[in-house]
């Protein structure tokens, strides 16, 4: 009995060991190009050059980030812009997902393709596309002008609204797909049951469909929030410096000021934001009733 257990244990251990070999290259790759730089990044952010230029252990970079009003403002703006983009993505994405799941029928595949297609083009292309549309003499302004709706061209580029538009455009598919995946799993008989019990269409949505699709909204929100937090090109090309967020600041510190330590500290703050988001995702999603 014990001998048998021991051999089977040895066998399974050996099987596990054998199974690990194929993933070894990936592990080494991650170790060399992800974990080591991450650790290096962490260390760098903790050593500040003193007057003589000699690095000394210090929390100075972080102190500056969290006390200096300028940096606090950037941090706040980063979160605020991401949050706003997330909320707009929910408002736009939910109806689209709902339509896809409940009414699109055989057009569902087409809709998914249309949703994903923008993601297949490069972000530079998409951003320049928005440039063409939103520019001072761009498509939108000339249309509005010719319709007589405005007298002077609107300043849309180099403006926070352009950043939000660009972010939402890129990120809304993630929201739609997250919500649609969960909506698809909701048994429509639950809604029928609610209606038969006297709930109006709207009440049924509020009491049954919406609560049951919260998981999808939360997943989508966290994905969108994290991606928006880290987005750089949209901020740079559409915001043109009007919206300075952490990624832009990192870019500045890293390439222009060449203060690698400070850039590393900001990178770590961004990383912590992402980790908090992931933690929330794990904790919030799939609570009670998720099982059935």
């Amino acid at each position: 009995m014990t001998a048998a257990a021991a051999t089977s244990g040895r066998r399974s251990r050996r099987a596990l060991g054998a199974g690990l070999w194929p993933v070894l290259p990936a592990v080494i790759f991650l170790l060399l190009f992800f974990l080591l730089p991450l650790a290096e990044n962490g260390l760098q952010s903790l050593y500040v050059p003193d007057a003589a230029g000699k690095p000394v252990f210090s929390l100075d970079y972080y102190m500056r980030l969290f006390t200096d009003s300028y940096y606090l403002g950037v941090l706040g703006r980063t979160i605020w812009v991401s949050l706003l983009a997330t909320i707009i993505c929910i408002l736009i994405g939910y109806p689209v997902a709902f339509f896809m799941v409940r009414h699109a029928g055989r057009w569902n595949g087409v809709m998914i393709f249309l949703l994903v297609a923008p993601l297949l083009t490069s972000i530079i292309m998409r951003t320049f596309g928005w440039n063409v549309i939103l520019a001072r003499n761009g498509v939108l302004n000339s249309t509005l002008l010719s319709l007589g709706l405005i007298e002077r061209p609107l300043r849309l580029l180099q403006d926070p609204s352009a950043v939000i538009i660009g972010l939402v455009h890129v990120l809304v598919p993630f929201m739609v797909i997250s919500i649609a995946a969960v909506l698809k799993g909701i048994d429509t008989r639950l809604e029928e049951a609610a209606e038969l019990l006297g709930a109006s269409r709207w009440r049924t949505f509020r009491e049954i469909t919406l609560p049951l699709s919260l998981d999808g909204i939360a997943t989508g929100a966290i994905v969108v929030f994290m991606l928006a937090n880290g987005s750089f090109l949209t901020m740079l090309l559409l915001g043109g410096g009007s919206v300075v967020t952490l990624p832009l600041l990192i870019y500045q510190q890293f390439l222009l000021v060449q203060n690698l330590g400070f850039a590393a500290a900001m990178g770590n703050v961004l990383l912590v934001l992402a980790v908090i988001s992931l933690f929330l995702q794990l904790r919030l999603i799939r609570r009670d009733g998720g099982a059935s």
Partner: protein
Amino acid sequence: MTQTTPKAQPAVTSDVPGLRLREVRKSFGSVAALQPTSFDVPAGTLCSLLGPSGCGKTTTLRIVAGFELPDAGQVLIRGEDRTYDPPQRRKLGMVFQNYSLFPHMTVAQNVAFGLRMARVNRAETEARTRRMLDIVHLPQHADRYPHQLSGGQQQRVALARSLVTEPSMLLLDEPLGALDKNLREQMQFEIRQLQREIGITTLLVTHDQEEALTMSDMIVVMDRGRILQAGSPAEVYEHPRNRFVSEFLGTSNIIDCTVMGAERGGLRLRLPGDEGSSGFFVADAPARPVGSTALVAIRPEHLRIVPAMEAGPSEPRATVSGHVFRGATHVFQLKRPGLDRPLMAYRQITGPVGETALAIGAEIGLSWLPGTARLLEDEPMREDAA
């Protein structure tokens, strides 16, 4: 049942049916799901819609619930035309096949849902919810979530949820399909008892003939969007009108017999391969031409078999070709020249097991009580490929 006085239900008057369908018809695209269908369910009784999948029973139920609108016809619930009312306004209770409990609500919240929608005040809602949970024996599970309950408990919650609003009718959509056999039998009795106590008109959709037979006051057998026969369980079982009903409810031996002649308002028939015998008599059958074929159904439990030497000289003979012991009964398969399918015969076991088994290959004499052989309406037809 004491502190709350629910609205007095309209007195159950026998002349207004609890449910009446008048020429209700429904097609999906070019597929006719339901041919014009009419039937009445007397108030306070339980009626089963029985048939294989795709027979139109679920479509009928969904039309009564208001989830589908009929192409034509009328749905009257307690005498009121509800054909085009939305589900919210029909005041119906329904138990779904998979119970459809709201997974994000506790048992108590599930049960209270209908009351909350009806804006019943909180104290009364709580009292009625608690009372309903008592009735279904789940008072201690009020704060659990559906996924923490067993299938039978979920079933009870669904029942409580559908009855707490005191609906004018109860709809049951294959309510026991997901339960195992023992629990199913127990729930059949429980649901039936509760239904009788409350006196609520109930429409049950099922493909399980046993469920229909044990639970119903009335069975409506459906196939391909049509009603084949409607009547009490005993009536439908004992007097199946045609081959489909006879085979769908229980097991039947269906035999192509030859008409020998009409007598005393019935027919004298002959088994195939039984030329020269005096045949047997089927009462209450309209005359048919001599020599034509007639389909006769005999239930296996009605066939009596005895060893050939004990049998009367006029009894038709057959050979035992198979035997299965099924606990309470012996099941015999019998072969007879002229029959393309073997006959089935059950023999109740009354004494010690093993005593009465007839050996395979033994010759036996067949007989049945007059009145247990039924003439079917079908013209004899060749075995369908389906």
